[in-house]
């Protein structure tokens, strides 16, 4: 027998992009994620989309469902499918064939991971496109926020990587459902319960814990700080996991081992930095601030030209609330007609931001947009301007509810007859407010009697009495018995 003569020490062939593309094409064509796309679409429609269309057509409010609903929904499937794909060689007993191939097993694994992750991201971005496309037909102000989308994509990549690694290292048909279960536990239990109670700052790393204030992107820029921190943290996890797989599958290759070690170290640095930044985060009125990545330019309010409806007292709102103006004016007009021309009456009613600063733990545990929106009004400046925060952002095309308009009427009266901006502490003030708002039934008996008396007067008589006694009423010097 004769042996084949081979050139010794010949250099390894370069892995050509074409080869990678073909491998990726095969992985994409056979990803099990394709089978789940209809299910994900249905889940999106009935959960995230359904919830989003119940919110007002403001970009940040609508985009909140991306991280609160869509990402957790997709994450469970992504982790499970990635685990199923990762365990393929073990389950199908092709480990020997893949191991004896020239292509490093790490590179083969990365192609499989990429196949699942690309489909996951495609499904996610498709859902975002539907959500944003629908919102674009309704929103009258601003544009689509991309930071939540980027953060969501990072989260999904991280769960794909974790699931894939679990499947590759522990190949079994049970790995996929376990990966989905663990993802659920991490998102719901670990972040929202355990970390939220012990380290609320770190709980901010959870995508489900980033509630945008209701007025974000309307009166002020939304801070991308938290999204940047989350992207850093979750991208770091992706890099750590993929680097770790490289270390595990290096099988004696120094180049692969070193590259994987460097990649893992970079990932760990990103994870550590993300955690460090989350630890320094604080919640402010306009969102979560992480000092190291905060851009001071985003502190400036957004300039806008208000939309006004003229009348005895002009009423102005932010252009995003344009559709709300006719109903607001109709609700306030009886009061405006009563107060116009009185001493200290506002020359204009102007909408103000409704966001309030929350404690960190409250912000973390809040997932409903409505919980962050308050109702208040204040009379400030000279000549006085009544600044009114709307209690409920409108949900177009539905008109605002009579209940919310009633709250705004109350805030209006509070600001006007209450002591220096709002809180009614005096029984006479409460009685006059109740009389003007026709809800005397909520008051204790003496105040209710006074309110009923005042409500029974003709509007011109009420106005004449207010013109004479308003100053004393506002300073709390009117006794209930003096109310006609």
């Amino acid at each position, binding site marked *: 027998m004769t042996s084949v003569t081979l050139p010794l020490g010949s250099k390894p062939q370069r892995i050509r992009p074409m*080869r990678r593309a073909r491998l990726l094409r095969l992985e994409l064509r056979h990803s099990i994620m394709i089978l789940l796309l209809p299910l994900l679409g249905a889940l999106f429609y009935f959960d995230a989309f359904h919830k989003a269309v119940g919110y007002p057509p403001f970009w940040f409010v609508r985009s909140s469902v991306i991280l609160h609903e869509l990402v957790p929904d997709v994450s469970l499937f992504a982790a499970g499918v990635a685990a199923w794909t990762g365990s393929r060689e073990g389950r199908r007993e092709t480990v020997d064939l893949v191991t004896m191939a020239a292509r490093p097993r790490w590179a083969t694994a990365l192609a499989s991971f990429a196949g699942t992750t690309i489909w996951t991201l495609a499904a996610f971005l498709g859902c975002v496109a539907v959500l944003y496309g629908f919102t674009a037909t309704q929103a009258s102000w601003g544009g689509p926020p991309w930071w939540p989308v980027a953060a969501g994509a990072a989260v999904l990549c991280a769960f794909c990587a974790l699931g894939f690694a679990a499947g590759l290292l522990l190949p079994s048909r049970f790995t996929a459902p376990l990966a989905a279960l663990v993802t659920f536990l991490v998102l719901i239990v670990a972040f929202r319960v355990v970390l939220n109670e012990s380290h609320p700052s770190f709980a901010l790393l959870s995508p489900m814990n980033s509630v945008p204030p209701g007025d974000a992107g309307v009166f002020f820029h939304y801070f991308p700080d938290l999204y940047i921190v989350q992207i850093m943290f979750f991208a770091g996890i992706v890099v750590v996991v993929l680097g770790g797989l490289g270390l595990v599958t290096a099988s004696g290759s120094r180049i692969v081992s070193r590259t994987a070690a460097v990649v893992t170290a970079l990932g760990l640095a990103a994870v550590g930095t993300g955690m460090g930044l989350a630890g320094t985060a604080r919640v402010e009125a306009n969102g979560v601030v992480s000092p190291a990545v905060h851009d001071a330019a985003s502190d400036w309010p957004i300039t806008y030209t208000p939309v006004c409806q003229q009348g005895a007292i002009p009423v102005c709102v932010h252009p995003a609330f344009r559709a709300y103006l006719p109903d607001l004016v109709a609700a306030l007009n009886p009061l405006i007609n009563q107060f116009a021309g009185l001493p200290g009456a506002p020359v204009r009613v102007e909408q103000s931001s409704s966001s309030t600063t929350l404690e960190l733990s409250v912000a973390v545990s809040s997932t409903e947009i409505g919980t962050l929106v308050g109702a208040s009004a204040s009379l400030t400046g000279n000549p006085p301007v009544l600044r009114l925060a709307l209690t409920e952002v409108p949900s177009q095309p539905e008109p605002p509810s009579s209940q919310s308009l009633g709250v705004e009427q109350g805030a209006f009266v509070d600001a006007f007859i209450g002591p220096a901006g709002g809180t009614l502490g005096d029984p006479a003030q409460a009685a006059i407010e109740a009389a003007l708002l026709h809800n005397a039934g909520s008051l204790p008996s003496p105040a209710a009697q006074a309110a009923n008396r005042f409500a029974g007067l003709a509007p011109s008589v009420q106005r004449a009495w207010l013109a004479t006694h308003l100053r004393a009423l506002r300073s709390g010097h009117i006794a209930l018995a003096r109310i006609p």
Partner: protein
Amino acid sequence: MNIDIDHLTRRFGRTQAVVGVDLQVGLGVFGLLGPNGAGKTSLLRMMATVLQPSSGSLRLLGRDPHNYGERREIRRRLGYLPQNLGYYPGFTVVEFVEYFALLKEMSPARIPAAVAEAVERVELGEKARSKLRTLSGGMLRRVGIAQAIVNDPELLLLDEPTAGLDPEQRVQFRAVLRELGERSTVVVSTHLVEDVGAACTEVALIDRGNIAFRGTPDELTERGAGYGLGDSPLERGYSAVLAGGRA
């Protein structure tokens, strides 16, 4: 020599699967015969660079598989059909063979033609676009052979390649083996002595991790002269060697 093995040993815990094997193999079809559990598959997996030897030295295609760079070179020139062929049910025949061609780092430009040729060679042209889940056991075995030969390997390792093939396919496959053996080293591990007799130029009989016999099929046949156990002369030689070794 394309395979140069010196005192190769492989242990699994207390069990010695391969015990100090010395073997040199050049071009041609080389048969590895032996009873179940003799160590054939372990030896083949070490040659396929899948299994690390416990001790001894192994050189394949003039290269040392311990060295990562050389191992990669070996793997580019290697074809391997494992005893239990795993497969991906959703892949078509062409996709499965193409997948492993890509893992063997074949030139992308060469792959379509090479895949088509390999599939034709195992007589699966008509099933090229069929999903693997729809194929019979014999057809799957042929798919496994196609992925092993797609890179036109200089060293082809086949573990029980004819298991599941019908007699006609087996005859055709032996012809393919003889053809491959003209320009590369083909090692066929089998317990079917007729495969060895028909296709192999040389044969080694392994028993309890050791090589009990090495020679041509004719020499093995001669060993069986006068020995009664076995239906064919080669089987009688096989049985005689095993019986002699155990005695």
